[in-house]
Every structure is written in structure tokens, then in C-alpha cells.
């Protein structure tokens, strides 16, 4: 059977990620106005943010499909992509040009969500395989 908590978590994750994306983008714009943010530092930050958004969409779609169709392949792929998302979230938490307190808060929440999701995915894969 599909895991209901995982599905709920995907849904919440989707909404939260939209919020996260908009807030991070707004804060990068704010930082570029208030601080000295030269172009060769601004470009990688923006690039990673957009890559992260694409990965997130892919990840949530595959995870949701795998959970609903009770197949472990898309779910496994989603788990692999989650690793990439985690690394990007850590980038925004630690290796960004300017890390504000708000950045720390939203990235921490995102990492916590990823962690919870990963655990539930592993459980779901285990359930589907057997």
C-alpha cells in the first residue's frame, strides 16, 4: 500500500519549497542591493538556486509517482536526487556568499524535511520490494 505520511510530506514539501524558492530569490536580490555583491559571486548563487528548483520538481514528481504506483524504481531515483538536493541545501546554508540568519532558518527546515522524507522513502521502498 502507498505510504500516506510520505504523500502528505511530499505535498507539504512542495508548498514549502515554493515559499523557500521565492524567499531565497528575494533575499539574493536584497543582498545584491545592500551589500557588495560582485557579479562573479552573484551568478553561481543564482545558478545553483535554479538548478535546485529543477531538481526539486523532478524529485517530488518521481517520488509521488513511485509512492502512488507502489513502484520502487522511481522512488529510488527520487532518493538519489534527494542527496543532490541535500548538498545544494547545505550549499545555501554554509557556502553561499552571504548567509543571513533567515537563510539558516529556512535551510534548516528544508534539511529536516529532506531527512524525514528520506527515512519514509526507505521504509516505503522496503515495503514495496517485499
Amino acid at each position, binding site marked *: 500500500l502507498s505510504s500516506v505520511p510520505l504523500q502528505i510530506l511530499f505535498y507539504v514539501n512542495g508548498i514549502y519549497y515554493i515559499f523557500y524558492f521565492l524567499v531565497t530569490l528575494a*533575499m539574493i536580490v*536584497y543582498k545584491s542591493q545592500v*551589500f*557588495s*555583491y560582485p557579479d562573479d*559571486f552573484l551568478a553561481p548563487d543564482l545558478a545553483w538556486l535554479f538548478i535546485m528548483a529543477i531538481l526539486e520538481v523532478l524529485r517530488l514528481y518521481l517520488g509521488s509517482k513511485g509512492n502512488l504506483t507502489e513502484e520502487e524504481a522511481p522512488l529510488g531515483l527520487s532518493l538519489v536526487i534527494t542527496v543532490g538536493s541535500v548538498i545544494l541545501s547545505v550549499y545555501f546554508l*554554509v*557556502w*553561499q*556568499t*552571504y*548567509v*543571513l*540568519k*533567515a*537563510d*539558516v*532558518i529556512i535551510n534548516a527546515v528544508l534539511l529536516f524535511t529532506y531527512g524525514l522524507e528520506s527515512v519514509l522513502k526507505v521504509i516505503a521502498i522496503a515495503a514495496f520490494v517485499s
Partner: protein
Amino acid sequence: PPEIRAAARARTHSGPAPVTDVAKLCVCDLLVAQCDVNCCCDPDCSAADFSLFTTCSVPIVTGDSRLCSQKAAIYSLDVEANPPERKFKLIDQVNPSVFCIHATNYKQALYFSSPEMPISENFDQLLKQFGSASFSAEPDSWNMNTDAQNPSDVNETYRYEYGVPIQTVDAFLRLPSPFFPGFLVNQATKCTRSVSVEKCANIQAVSMLFYINSSILAVNITVQSIVVQSLNGMRTLLNGSNVLRLPLIVDELCINTVLGVSYHITYTDAGEIIEAAASFVLGAINKEVLSIQQSFEISFTQVNTKPVPLSGNPGYVVGLPIRAGFRPQGYPFPVEILFAALVLNTNKYSQLTILQSTSNQDCLAAQGTRTPILFGYNMISGCKLRITAGMKCQPLTQTLLDLLKGQSFPEYVASFGNSQAQNVLDWVPITHLHTSEQRIYNAFQSSCQIPVSLEIEVKWTKYGSLLNPQARIVNVTARITTTTAKRLPSGRERTIPITSSVVFTDISSPAEPGYKAWPTINAKLPFDFFFPFV
């Protein structure tokens, strides 16, 4: 060895490392090895010094306050204790905002960048960038500026407004100043140019041709006069045709180099430029000269007027001479004077002037030196008159009147600093008053009355807005005071002081506030609001 050289290079490439430890930073520590007064963070001060301070000039030293958490050094004086002692605390200051900087991975983010230290590798590049007379790049060709607005469709009669750049055939007229010379903006600038005798024929900007080459729209720039300056600085005006003289090398000297250009532009009152002339100062450069100073000037004159320097625009400026003039004879008063011009005295020494005191205080020996009356400056001057027995009354009276009033005492004074001669109503007539010093009516009035003092009282008012009041002359009164000169027995002489003075009185009425009208609600009912009933 190369390692030491590389290390030395690295060391000299940047300046000393900046101090970032908050506990060691002290902005008020200016004197080396001495205690600065009221500087609580100065390490040179002892406890005895601290007990003499009244307050701490630098109470807190922090890093960038945008960081979430930063160290702060707090210095305070505990005045309750006896003797007063300094307290030092190192705390962590927390920024409560959610947008405080938690961390940054960009080294130069929060610090000023240190400028490059010149070493042998980057010296040439730094010299090219910063080594000339000014840091901003000089435009390559002056009478062309392709970055400026494109000259719009130019027709033959282009009307200018104040401050608008003057168009030449393909671009705008330029002087070596940061700004374009605007229409009606008189400017004078100087600049230094590096030259050499060998290359003087090649440098465009020292040749006359460069300055008269462009024509202002339909008007060619003519050469008005050429003054030649010799090597020892003596200037001579060249007579004869004003022909173009190009730089030439003669006997190791480069002659005919342009040292100064003065443009005179004539305009009509519709704002069109009808004439442009340039006067040049040409000089000679010898081998030792490495740079010359060129001066440039541009001035605007209205057609059919003589250029009279304004004393304010429009209100008089304190310190500038009062403009005065006469009404020429034969003009009836006042309506027909639309076309008559007041004859203005362009020579400022024959304007409204006052006797100038000389070191030799004898009135009759005075050469008649006069000083112009400057707006806002009250002046008093005088001399001593020695009357001997043989002096006749009438010539003495006339001499004294000439002395006090000067040769051509004007009839009118301009009410504004920029009053034009054509507007007669802008000019204030001078009122003459005569008073006699005698209080008691003397039966011997037939005796000689000689003028002893001239008091000019100029009443002015502030005119216009409260924020930028303009001075306007309202009334000018010239009061001559006479006294009786009693006939002296022969051999005796008497000294009378003669004075003349100018007083400026401000008769401004207090400012009236001008309020905007209350906003009204402009609500009208539609025409057929009460339709069925009306």
C-alpha cells in the same frame, strides 16, 4: 635567491594588515606614546590619567553591526568611585534582526579594499592610469564629443535657452572643463598641457586652427585679435590682419603656440547666435619648457548692447558696484522712452562714486580719486579744507561740490543688479536734498554757504521669495549739508572737515506668508440629478 625576492615582493605588494581586534582598536589614540585626553581606550594612559577624564569620547568600539553576533569593547568612566576609574568590558553584541549576516564567504565583503602598492611590475600600468594632470581621461578631440546627445535637426535659426550647450556643425562646443559651456554662462578655465618643442607642430590643441576650425551652426568663428607673448612674459597686441598663425619651429623655439583663447559670442534677444569671435594669446616654447598652462574663456554679449558687468541677477549682490546712469538730453518723460536707452557708465569709476580719503588730507590737493560705491557696504570718507582769507565764495562752493559729487554724478540708479538700460521703470531717480547746518535763521544769509557733507542714503528692500530674497534698491537720496563760511580776517585760516558717506538701509517689510488655497471639493451633481421633478 628567488624565494626571498618572491617573499619580499609579496610583502611589499599589500600594505600593513588591517587591525580587526576590537579590543586593540582605538580611534581617539592620536598622540604616539602620550595619553590623549578623554580617550578611554588609549593604551598609553595610566589609571591616574583616567581619574582626570570627564567622559569617554569613544564609548564603544564594534565591528560591522550587520553581523549577527560580534565582539564589542565598551569603555566607560565610573564617576561614582573615588578616584574615577575607567571600566572596560568585552561583550558579544547580538543583532536581533532576522536579516543579520550569519556568515560570509566573500573576503572583501565587509572591509574596504586596500589600494595596490606600486612595485616594479605594476608601476607602468599605475602610472598610465594615475600619472597625468587629472585622473579623468581627456577627450581625444575637443570640439567633437560623440557621447553627448545627438545634435537634433539643425535649422539655420536655432534658439538657445540659458545653459543649453552650444552646437557646432557636428557636435557641441567644448572647453577643457567638466561641463559644456552653456549658453549665457560665462566661464573661464585653465588647464596644463605637456608639450615639447619637437612635437609642438603635431599637438592639435596648441594650434590656432583647432579652435576656429569648427563653426557654430551658420556662424563662422572669426579671429578678433591676437596678442603675442614673448618668452619673458611681455605681451604685445598684433596690428594688421588677423591671419591664421600656425606653430612653427624657429631656432629651437616653437612660436605661435596657443596660450589662451577667449571666445566672444553675440546673441540676439530671441536667443540666436549671430556672431562668434575668438581672441588668442600666442606664445613661444623653448627647450626647457615641459608643460604650458592654457586659459580658456567664453563670454556672451547681447547684440547692440555694450557688455556691462551685472551687479547681481536680479537682486544686488553685496560687494558689487551700484549701477547708475543718465538719461540722455532731449528725451521727453516717460512714456515715449520705450526706445531710449539710459546711457550707462561702463567705466565703473564714473558710476556712483564717493570721495576717497587720501593720506594727504587736504581737500584741495586731492587728485580727485574716487571709489565706487559697493552695494551693502556703508562707507565714510573725508578730507580737511583749509580756508584762507583770500578765498572767494562761489569758486570754493563749486570746487567743493565737484569734490563731493565727482565729475559726473549720475541721475538714476538701477533698482536691480541686472536692470537693462531700455527699461526706464527699473531705474530709480536720485533725489537731491539740501540742508543747512544753521539751526537758527541767521539774518546774514547772504554770507557764504559752502557744502561740507554729502550723505547718500540708499534704501533697499528684500524682494521675492522668503527663501531667496533679492535685494532691490527703492530709493536713493543725496543730501548736501551746507554751512556758513564766515569771512576771515586776513592772515587767519580755518580748517573745516568735509565728509561724504554712504549708508544702506534695509526697509524690507516683514515677509507675508503665502499659503496655498485650501483644497475644495469639487463635486457637482449631474445635470439631471433631480430628473423627474425638475
